[in-house]
């Protein structure tokens, strides 16, 4: 009886500490290491890749990490935004997919973006591609149509939103000339 109560109390304390760490991780901007971007050669790649996403109006400047969908699970970094490497390089014809957590130090401010605002993507050849937001919307997590390829050059940037992160906020931006 005594042992059981001790185990329960210790487990409870452990879970509360872990929960506190998750909250700390979510809200601590110091966790972003802009100078510590790992090389992206570990994933299948060819040619130019995005390096940073910049949304000046929201004060967002985040490193881009390559990501894949493996067994229907999306890789997602906690140190920046994830770029789906199977989608086109931002600026090329098609729909480039970039996504990130809705933490305040990541894409938590994204739902404040408005159509007409700029999203810049810095490539690893130091060229910058500028996109103008055309649409924003809240969709369900199963609405994968937003990932479909297009004939124009656009980026689709999204993050979680809504009650218990049950929805996705999507911003679609097209390349400026």
């Amino acid at each position, binding site marked *: *009886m*005594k042992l059981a*109560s001790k*185990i*329960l*109390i210790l*487990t*409870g*304390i*452990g*879970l*509360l500490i872990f*929960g506190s760490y*998750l*909250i700390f991780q*979510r809200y601590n901007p110091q966790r972003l290491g802009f100078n510590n971007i790992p090389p992206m050669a570990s994933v299948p790649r060819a040619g130019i890749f995005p390096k940073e996403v910049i949304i000046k109006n929201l004060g967002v400047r985040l490193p881009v990490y390559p990501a894949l*969908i493996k067994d*229907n699970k*999306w890789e*997602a970094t906690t140190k920046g935004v*994830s770029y789906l490497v*199977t*989608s086109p390089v931002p600026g090329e014809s*098609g*729909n480039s*997919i970039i*996504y990130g*957590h*809705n933490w305040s130090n990541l*894409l938590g401010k994204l739902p404040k973006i408005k*159509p*007409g605002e700029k999203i810049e993507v810095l490539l690893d050849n130091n060229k910058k591609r500028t996109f*103008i*937001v*055309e*649409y*924003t*919307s809240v*969709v369900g*997590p*199963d*609405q*994968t*149509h*937003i*990932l*479909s*390829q*297009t*004939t*124009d050059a656009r980026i*689709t940037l*999204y*993050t*979680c*939103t809504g009650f*218990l*992160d049950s929805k*996705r906020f999507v911003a679609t931006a*097209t390349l400026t000339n």
Partner: protein
Amino acid sequence: MRGRLFIAFLIVLFALSVRLSVPSVYAVVSPDFPSCVNPQGSLKVEYNQGTHGVIGNSNEFKGKDSVYTISENQTLQCLCTDNGQGIQTNWWKVSSLTADQINILISQGWTKIPDGSAWGLDSSPYLARNIDYSCSGSGNSTGGVGGQVLGASTGSVLGLATTGNTPFILSVILSGLIFLSLGAAITKIKNDTGI
């Protein structure tokens, strides 16, 4: 007695936390519509300017209206007003549904239109649902690909990435509180009863 009540309270808390992760089950499953941020299907009609109506809304809207045929029973209407307000209307032809099924869907927020011909659709009953989005205004918009759909390079994907961990954090903290409370309750019962 108080100890038992406390344990019962904890059991209810646990049941509620489990309930959070159980999806709702509906008698009728509505079809999946694409979003106007990346419309799919074939472009049926498009008006770059003009005054348009929206189902369930008595106001008139000026702007660009694009209508896409998604399937035989699904039509997508994307209205982007001049001031950047976007209204997506999902049109679902429901001639094969029973009155009970339609009533369930109406209770879920769909609006019934007895005859779609008044809205330029087939002369059949429809259910419609509006979803707000934002757009850059019809005059500036370059978006939309006019129904030209290419194959998605993302392969077969069942859902979008999970980019939030609020439910997980809540469940960890709630579980911690439950474990802590259970431990404290057992200690208290032990002290009270001397077992």
